[in-house]
């Protein structure tokens, strides 16, 4: 199992979770905090996020994820963070008996 495959899998899970309302963009940013984003996103991506927010006049989780797509999340953020986001969503859905595992 290569890193690329795991990255692709997490990207697909994040994409599907957002598509199927398993979690919302705000749930993602609850785990992918500004500190996490600032620590792991490359400078050009941080610049895009800020530019888009300045153009819109606000920085919302939805707008952040429009720029930082699931593929970019899986590419730059630690997968453990993304997994915790998924685990928390599963717990809310009632299918995860062991939150934080």
């Amino acid at each position, binding site marked *: *199992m*290569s890193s690329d*495959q*795991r990255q*692709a*899998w997490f990207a*697909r*899970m994040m*994409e*599907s*979770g957002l*598509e*199927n*309302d*398993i979690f919302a963009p705000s749930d993602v940013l609850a785990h992918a905090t500004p500190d996490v984003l600032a620590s792991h996103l490359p400078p050009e991506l941080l610049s895009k996020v800020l530019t888009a927010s300045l153009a819109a006049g606000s920085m919302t989780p939805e707008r952040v994820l429009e720029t930082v797509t699931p593929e970019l999340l899986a590419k730059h953020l630690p*997968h*453990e963070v993304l*997994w915790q986001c*998924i*685990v928390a969503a*599963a717990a809310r*859905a009632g*299918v*995860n*008996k062991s939150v934080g*595992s």
Partner: protein
Amino acid sequence: MNLKAFFVAALSSALDQGIAVPDDVVRHVTPDVLAVHLPRPLWARLLTACVGAARVDAQLVVETIGVPNLCEHVPAQIIWDCIQEIARRSLDGVVMTVPSASSRPTTVPTASTMLTSSMSSTMSSGSRPVPLSTPPPPPAAEPKPAEPKPPVAVGPSIPAPGADEPEGRRTQPGQRFRPNNTGVGRLGSNISSPRRPQAQATTSPTEPERGERGAVAPGGAGDRGGVPRSRRGQTEADYDLETFVGNKDDWKTSLAVDDEQLVDWSASDETVTNGEEIGRKR
């Protein structure tokens, strides 16, 4: 929230990416779980595939049932436990031992072709893990448009109207009733054999004009007066010659016919208009 769709995407992607193998799925979705939760039609599909396969393993089970069906029928907690284990192992950096493609004979269960289309549609979403050593597949050739083939006849051949047919097989639908303004001579023009001469019935002086059908007496072909007319079932020309009068009482007065004009049809092949011959034969 569509949790099952998320499970399908997560599990299918894990299998596609080689993050997980079918054994990971069957370790959670055990035969006991399938026995309880899998519908009978899917069980029938699974049994059919297993019977026709050279080797029964987890890959066959997962591919036959399909990830969407698994996520649909197996409790979400079990699917989640499976995904959770895969993720834990992935995050811990455990390297999977993916069986090579050659270790398992490729057996395509022929019985799968007998499945319903709805089931078959879900089969396509079933994923097969791609071994790491496997080179990327060559780009798929563009599907060529199918050449148009002539339709296969599934029923008896019905010739188009106007198509040539051998004589005798085809019968022209004849006109069942001849219009009033068509003469006998017109019909006779198409007959090769000469037509027998016929006696001309004279019109009674008291009869009002009947137009072109002067030979028809009152109570004749157009006015039968309720008396049944015996039809001989012969030619149309014979049908036209009937001078049967419908009313028994007035035919003598309305139709003045001499004996010379009577024709004895049954006695001779020749039409006789001579009064002497008529009298002699009678």
